[in-house]
């Protein structure tokens, strides 16, 4: 069971986990999202909190509600999420890396060669 930490509000974490699944393709577009009760039981949280998390994604048009059937992943949701995450990418991942590199005295060239090292698929886009 994925761990929920104390940092972000619970409902935000729920939304992030669902978003992760959409970005990874685990939750395909048009697929049904777990219900509020299912999420609540899975994470052992209050159903109202789960509902808040889902509503967060509904507000961002990542999920859509189909009356009487449930919540579904909206078309274009994956690309939408990836785009918004790309915007955060620099702030969340690049800046800390640069800060740490600076702290350890790793210069830019070494950094680039580390990035381009044997283990990295060049080209930038994942299948």
């Amino acid at each position, binding site marked *: 069971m994925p761990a929920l930490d104390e940092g*972000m509000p619970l*409902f935000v974490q729920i939304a992030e986990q669902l978003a992760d699944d959409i970005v990874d393709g685990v939750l395909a577009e048009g697929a049904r999202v777990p219900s509020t009760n299912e999420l609540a039981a899975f994470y052992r949280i*209050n159903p109202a909190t789960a509902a808040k998390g889902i509503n967060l994604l509904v507000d961002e048009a990542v999920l859509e509600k189909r009356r009487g059937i449930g919540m579904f992943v909206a078309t274009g949701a994956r690309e939408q999420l990836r785009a918004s995450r790309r915007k955060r990418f620099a702030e969340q991942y690049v800046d800390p890396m640069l800060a740490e590199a600076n*702290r350890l005295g790793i210069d830019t060239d070494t950094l680039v060669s580390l990035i381009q090292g044997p283990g990295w698929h060049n080209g930038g886009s994942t299948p």
Partner: protein
Amino acid sequence: MTPTISATALGRRYRDQVALDDVSLTVEPGTVTGLLGRNGAGKTTLMRIITGQEFPSSGDLRVFGETPAENDEVLARMVFVREEQSYPDFQVRHAIRVASWFYPNWDEDLAQQLLKDFELPPRRRIKRLSRGMRSAVGIVIGLAARADLTLFDEPYAGLDAVARQLFYDRLLAEFAEHPRTILLSTHLIDEVADLLEHVVMLDHGRVVLDAPADEVRGTGMIVNGPYTAVEEFVAGRTVWHRQRLGSRASVTIADPLDLAAQAQARALHLSLEPLSLQQLLVHAAGVSADEKVSA
């Protein structure tokens, strides 16, 4: 919508002590509210007044819009699972059977399933059960009654961690399938933190905190790191607590931190540790104690 419970300036005093002092709160229908506080804070007294077992000394309390004391209509919609319940000389199955007569929403299948889950022998005399199993009997009745207002007052005395988790899971499942208003008093806050939608904290008979759980969660953060860096980071923020050991410091702040602030912390090589609900409430109790001292 009428609040399920509505207290206005509620007070209860005994000869030598004040159990409740100017308590005002509302509990909305269909929510899970945690009633938190230290031993002797007034949680049990409040719940006893809500269930008509005690009478207020002052103020007003309404349940489903009416006074609960001696009110059969209101009382029939409530079930109160206490910390220590005294039973007549019954076997477990007798207590379950009697409860099924009185509660209109009683679910017998659920009761039987819960008896199995908690491994309660139906033909054992309740008097001869261990403390934990006696608590389990109360929990079975409390859940199977499906009462509109379900109150639990530290119902897990003697229950081990596994049984407690079973209780929380069943409670959550029941609440999800058949929504009702739940008031749960506990001092094992972190165990139930994620189940709570609303939090009320009592201290020496007064309400010191009454807020949605989401608001309370994530309010506090402990910032650890080199002293100067920590001080630089917390400058201008609400500081709750400062601790220093040599060149390192640990400061607890109140403000939530956005992504930028978190990045800044990382840049300063500070570690951030969110406060758990339990820690937050310990803080809230401490604040009210300090206020009393300085008042």
